[in-house]
């Protein structure tokens, strides 16, 4: 004889999925990257669309022409460099819990080691333990549900129903912790990429300026 098993309240009223501060931070960082790309593209447009016309009639001889073309090429290389480096921030990323061990996340790893409770709650002291905890509580809920199917005593059914709720709650909270940690790892990856992109942007800006100076030297020389 099989008896009904109470439905999981998480299926009808799951834990609230809110936009975490990590997701908000990612949106902010991507907005910064989009702004940087747009501004750089505008600079590229001015370089390509404006400078060649300004140089008409001011270039005399092959040397000037070579210098102007070379300067424009150097400046445009800087523009493409910025767009390429900053575009990395906008590229979707594949994130797992093992990504926490990846490069650029040393700061996050140190924070996790300092305060594991803040990141894993009562579900372990490492990402691997948190992941195991998710599976453990989900499997425990399934085992309790199997006991309930064959339990006929009302008192024992009531007790098992209580424990089924406990196991499902534990599993839901562990999964919420895991999801929050994945979002945090992702945000940290984007943050590291944006910081690298800012350094690239600084260096590439020097290239753009150098290219523009070469171009102006060529036209001034005429």
């Amino acid at each position, binding site marked *: 004889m099989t008896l009904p098993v109470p439905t999981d309240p998480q299926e009808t009223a799951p834990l609230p999925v809110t936009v975490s501060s990590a997701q908000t931070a990612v949106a902010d960082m991507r907005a910064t990257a989009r702004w940087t790309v747009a501004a750089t593209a505008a600079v590229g447009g001015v370089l390509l669309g404006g400078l060649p016309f300004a140089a008409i009639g001011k270039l005399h001889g092959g040397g000037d022409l070579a210098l102007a073309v070379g300067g424009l090429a150097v400046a445009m290389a800087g523009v493409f460099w910025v767009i390429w480096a900053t575009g990395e921030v906008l590229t979707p990323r594949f994130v797992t819990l093992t990504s926490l061990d990846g490069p650029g996340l040393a700061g996050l790893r140190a924070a996790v080691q300092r305060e594991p409770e803040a990141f894993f709650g009562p579900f372990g002291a490492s990402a691997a333990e948190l992941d195991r905890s998710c599976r453990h509580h989900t499997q*425990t809920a399934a085992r309790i549900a199997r006991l309930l199917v064959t339990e006929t005593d009302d008192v024992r059914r009531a007790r098992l129903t209580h424990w089924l709720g406990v196991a499902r709650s534990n599993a839901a909270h562990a999964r919420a912790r895991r999801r929050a940690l994945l979002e945090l790892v992702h945000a940290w990856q984007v943050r590291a990429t944006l910081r690298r992109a800012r350094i690239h942007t600084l260096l590439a800006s020097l290239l753009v300026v150098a290219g523009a100076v070469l171009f102006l030297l060529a036209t001034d020389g005429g």
Partner: protein
Amino acid sequence: MNGNDESTVPPPEVGSVRLADDGTLEQFDGTAWTPYEELVDDGEGQGAWDFRRPT
């Protein structure tokens, strides 16, 4: 025969659960039955950390 029958009773699997007489739930951890407990958490997954916009 009885002894042989007892020896054929399979040991519980790791993770098996049983309801104790006092109403607690016990789980086999591979060596002993230990109480299964409710783990209280704050509910939304994010602990005491935050990303803040610079002010």
